[in-house]
């Protein structure tokens, strides 16, 4: 029964690698706010974006925890569930993220332990150790991999910031199961107190070049509107967020020119 179901789902799964977000399939798909901005967030401080670029971790000023669900194209088998925790220290912060993608016969668990530190007023850097476990129906063994990712964040001026992130810059020959590798670079500008815009490029061995752009606008104090575009799959994105005391709720939507709409929802609780 499920073997028939596995074929189309696996096909989409493989297809996703090169088009859903344009980049590597090991992307945590975390953060509805980031999803609403077309994932153009490598330079933008935030709870979930800290796991897109660990150099953003020190910008989290209070301990926080969050959960996220990302439904790709409304297919439950392609959903990603994530949970994360951030603990700020003096000029540094620690983070932990767990993510589960797929369903019983095609699943990937990933866990990461991250650390970010402010190196100077302008520069911060971060690194994350990753563990991946993948299971595919029909295969006897579970594929497990260890790797790392690292990034830096630069505050070029009061308004302009840059982010650089590398995933798995390790020779494939060092491990049994190869993992993709990627490089991601972006820049953001705060155009006014309420408006932030960003653009970034990512290239992964699992996909081509993906150019993204996004914005975030705060029309009211606690309410945020987001929009973006990603060239991978010609994906237009939009989203919104609302903060009630210590709780932040975000909703994000992204389209794909052939596969439909993906939805993301996340909740963050800050321990203030």
């Amino acid at each position, binding site marked *: 029964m499920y073997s028939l179901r596995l074929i189309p789902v696996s096909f989409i799964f493989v297809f996703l690698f090169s088009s859903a977000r344009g980049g590597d399939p090991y992307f945590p798909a975390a953060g509805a706010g980031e999803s609403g901005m077309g994932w153009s967030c490598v330079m933008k401080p935030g709870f979930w974006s800290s796991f897109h670029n660990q150099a953003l971790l020190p910008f989290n000023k209070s301990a926080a925890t969050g959960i996220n669900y990302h439904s790709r194209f409304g297919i439950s088998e392609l959903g990603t569930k994530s949970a994360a925790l951030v603990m700020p220290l003096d000029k540094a912060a620690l983070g932990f993220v767990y993510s589960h993608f797929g369903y019983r016969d095609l699943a990937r668990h990933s866990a990461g332990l991250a650390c970010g530190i402010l190196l*100077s007023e*302008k*520069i911060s850097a971060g690194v994350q150790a990753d563990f991946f476990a993948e299971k595919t129906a029909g295969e006897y063994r579970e594929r497990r991999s260890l790797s790392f990712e690292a990034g*830096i964040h*630069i505050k*070029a001026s009061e308004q302009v910031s*840059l982010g*650089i992130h*590398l995933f798995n*810059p390790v*020779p*494939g*020959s060092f491990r049994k199961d*190869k993992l993709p*590798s*990627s*490089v991601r*670079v972006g820049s953001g500008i705060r155009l006014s107190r309420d408006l932030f815009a960003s653009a970034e*490029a*990512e*290239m*992964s*061995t699992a996909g*081509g*070049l993906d150019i993204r752009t996004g914005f975030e606008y705060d029309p009211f104090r606690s309410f945020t509107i987001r929009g973006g575009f990603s060239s991978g799959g010609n994906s237009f994105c939009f989203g919104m967020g609302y903060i009630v005391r210590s709780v932040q709720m975000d909703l994000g939507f992204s389209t794909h020119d052939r596969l439909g709409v993906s939805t993301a929802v996340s909740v963050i609780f800050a321990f203030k």
Partner: protein
Amino acid sequence: MKRGIIILIVLLPVNAVYPQEERIPDIIMEIAEQLSEDETDADAAGDFAIRLYELAEKPVRINTADESELSRLFFLTDFQIKALADYIRKTGRIYSVYEIAAVPGFNTPLSAMVAPFVTLEEGTQEEKKKIRLRNDILMNFSVKFPPTDTSAPGGSWKMLTKYRFSAGPFSGSVTSEKDAGEKFLQGKIPVTDFLSANLVWEGKGFVRKVIAGDFGARYGMGTGINTGLRTGLSLTQPGYLSGGDDIRPYTSTDENIFFRGAAVQLRSGKTGMTMFWSRNLIDATLDTAGTQAYVYISTFQRSGLHTTSSSLAARDAVAETSYGLSLSTDIRSLRLSLLWTQNRFSVPVMNDDPAPRELYDFTGSVNTTFTAGYKYMPGRVLLYGELSVNPTGRKAFVQGLSFKPSDRLSMNLVYRHYDPGYISFHGKGLFSSSSGDNSEGIFGNFILEAAKHLFLSAGVDVKVNPWLKYRCSAPSYGISREVRLRYLPSEKVSFEAVYSYRQTMLDQPESTGIKKQCQSEATSLRGSFRYMPLEKLTLTTRIDHKSVSPAGSAGISMLQDISWRIGAIPATVWFRHCIFRTGDWDSRIYAYENDLVHSFSIPALWGNGSRSCVMISVRPSGHADFRIKFAFGESSVPDGSGSSSELKVQARIRF
């Protein structure tokens, strides 16, 4: 106060020496990748890198230099050299390297390019009189995993050792190299596969320079003799059109291009003369015509690699004797020069069954070249030309024009004609093909400071090959175009975009019988962004795209460079991570990679994969520095040979 400012300006470049040294790889990159595109002359990139490093180690003292000394900045045009000399003569001295940007013919990018290779120090009289022995030893070791050739007789590691000394007017060097796969020591007197040495004396009187041992030479536009770089390589870079005369000690590792003997440079007033004599053993494949009685050269071997039985048999198989005489004189703004040179081979060259393409190839054992050239620079215009002729009547002709309508605009125009069959064994003329013959074309470019901080340059080269050439069995033509836009809003930030297009004609691979030709086109786009958030930290992001036809394939790459000069210890770390995806070998992308001093690396990226490298340079004192580099990459390519890594180690000691 004023005095203090002047002192500060003078000290600034001294403090900035280390960062300027770090600029050298960028300067090499700007040209080296273009050289690599021209597969037939890939080694030129190495020669270019070595010359730049040598120049950085012995920078030009611009405040006391005459035009001859300034011409050591070989990447500048004659025009720029004269403008720089005139500026220093008028103003007395230059106080900051940044001031060079104000010299007519220069701009901010060009002054940044010059900065690592000049010094503002003049040297005291005592220093000039004092003869102090300086020694410089450099050792490079590199190994690749997995080895590329496991059947080679020697180890898969490569080693390069250079020793150089100077003591007043005397200097000398010894270069030793073992390529990967070659035996470490060989011969009756055990030495490495390549060993080169020279001794130099330089004076300021009638005898200007004497070299004994291995040396290189270049005269005028290089149609007669040029053992260095082929000039006129870049369509949009500001320089590379210089036509200086020079003999120089040989320190490169090309094993077949240099001279081995003696050379003398004389000068009296405005007249100069150079004489040289050389007898060098070169690599060639020998054959016999039916019986052993008549031996001839069937092919010259240029790779310098001796790892197979055939290449070992060709090693030093032929003695080449070369000699020549050049004369030059300056009459106001006009320089006239003459060169006569002859090559003799101990074994004649013969082609007993020539293919149509080889119809004009050299045969015999003696070749003579006569060269006459001129250079005329009235005001803002530079006219230059050169004619070289073989006794067979085959000729090479170059005529160029450079002019500067305004300080913000410079233009170049060059026409060249190389007859099929024109031979100069040590010549590399302006815009010549790799074989040095069989091409005719016209080149033009301009460099414009379009607005404040914005620089635009563009160039076009159109050429025809009147006879057949490699991979093209018919007369052919080709076009190259390039546009380069550079925006430098501050010293910390730069943006660059480059568009280039190349069209050549090649045989259709599947055609049989009389081969048909097709147009091969390659279009490249490159964008790069460089940012220095801190004085010690430099970040560079670069994206390349290339498409080729008729294959219809495309390639794309994105790379991130991080260079960090650690403050606490005298060390610098470079890191690169590059992701690439190309459809096939034709759409490969070249990306220059920072490397050891006196070395270079320009990997061809193709397939789908990544390449990373990390290099650490430590300079514990002014007398020693060490570098270690580890590069690794993997790519899914059709032949499956996608994974490799390389380790390089360098030690350098000065005392």
